[in-house]
């Protein structure tokens, strides 16, 4: 969803046709169903089901932060800019 272009037929189709259902049962045996749709950003709109894809997300985080720690040691900060406190520079045109 997050990779579909804004307003594209794929995004529209996913938003209109995909619904995530969370089915939960309490101690008395009472079952509830909650629904939620996808958001344009690729998340879930109204409700994120408990534990839904948590393990995968956490694993992804641990791997990512471990790789950062590995790379950090190889970096050196050598760039020292001149911080100008005067008025902004003259520009030929706006961005």
């Amino acid at each position, binding site marked *: 969803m997050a990779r579909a272009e804004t307003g594209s037929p794929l995004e529209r189709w996913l938003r209109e046709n995909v619904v995530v259902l969370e089915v939960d049962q309490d101690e008395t045996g009472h079952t509830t169903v909650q629904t939620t749709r996808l958001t344009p950003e690729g998340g879930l709109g109204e409700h994120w089901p408990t534990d839904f894809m948590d393990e995968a997300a956490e694993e992804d985080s641990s791997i*990512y932060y471990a790789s950062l720690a590995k790379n950090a040691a190889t970096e050196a900060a050598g760039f*020292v800019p001149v911080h100008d406190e005067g008025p902004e520079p003259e520009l030929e045109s706006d961005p």
Partner: protein
Amino acid sequence: MTLGLIDPQLLELRPEQVIADELAQILLLCRQHSIVVPSSLPYWNELWSTMGARLEQTLGRGGQAYRAVQELRKPGTPVTGIPPAPEQRVRVWGFAGPARGALFDGAWPNLLAEAAVRAALTRQRVVLLCRHVQGRNLDVHQHANITLDEIVRWSLYVQPPVVGPVTIDCCTRPRNLAVPWTIRMDWRLPDTGRYPYCPMQNWRRGATRVFKTARSRPAWLDVQGNEWARPNISAGSGYHWHVYVNTNHHSRLGLEQINVVAFGGAASEGVPGSIHHMDPAKKAHFTDRGWTCP
């Protein structure tokens, strides 16, 4: 392609709902404007191994904020062809210093300046994905029921050799790129309808006065000399601006103050830039002539 740099303040600890709301706007901005956030710049590792890691640990698993932080980390795809930092000294503006609106402190000014300079050397447009924090890049002026959020740092500048001065706009939401003056003025000012807000020609320059406080009432100035004051919103209603019109418009419209629909409200509030509501007693004096931006 536009390159985005992440403001470390986006990863500062704060209430989860605030994180979720602010990052949702940033993610939408990246998506709608095809902003690529390079992960191959040195500030990235520092950012995520310190602030990102700490923030993720404090957030409820599965919550919107947690997802949003993970999503923000994802666009960090390696962008090839980013030149190394130049060996010459490079002048930069807005990153550090005692000046009002300097954005960063600690090790961040140099790390972010390096990232900005290297990104600017690609000759792609560069923006800072940022957050407004009172006392840092935001001053709040309040009087009775009127509040004006003054953004005191809306652009950074770097001047790499050969390339020359480059502007890096500080963006918090998609509208900042669609309507550039909203990086400095209130994003809820309308740019459409019969009564649009028309910014000063040199609104980017710090020396250009864009708001004033008259009779204790803080209000945005437009290029025509009209004053735009925003009443505080209570219970989600009243998304409009009090516009105190200039003498010329006063005689054209028949009123010295009109209520104009703000941008960003519900559709039921009306078209942004149209008349929101009018006191019945004033209606007889009013002529709906509108105005256009020069």
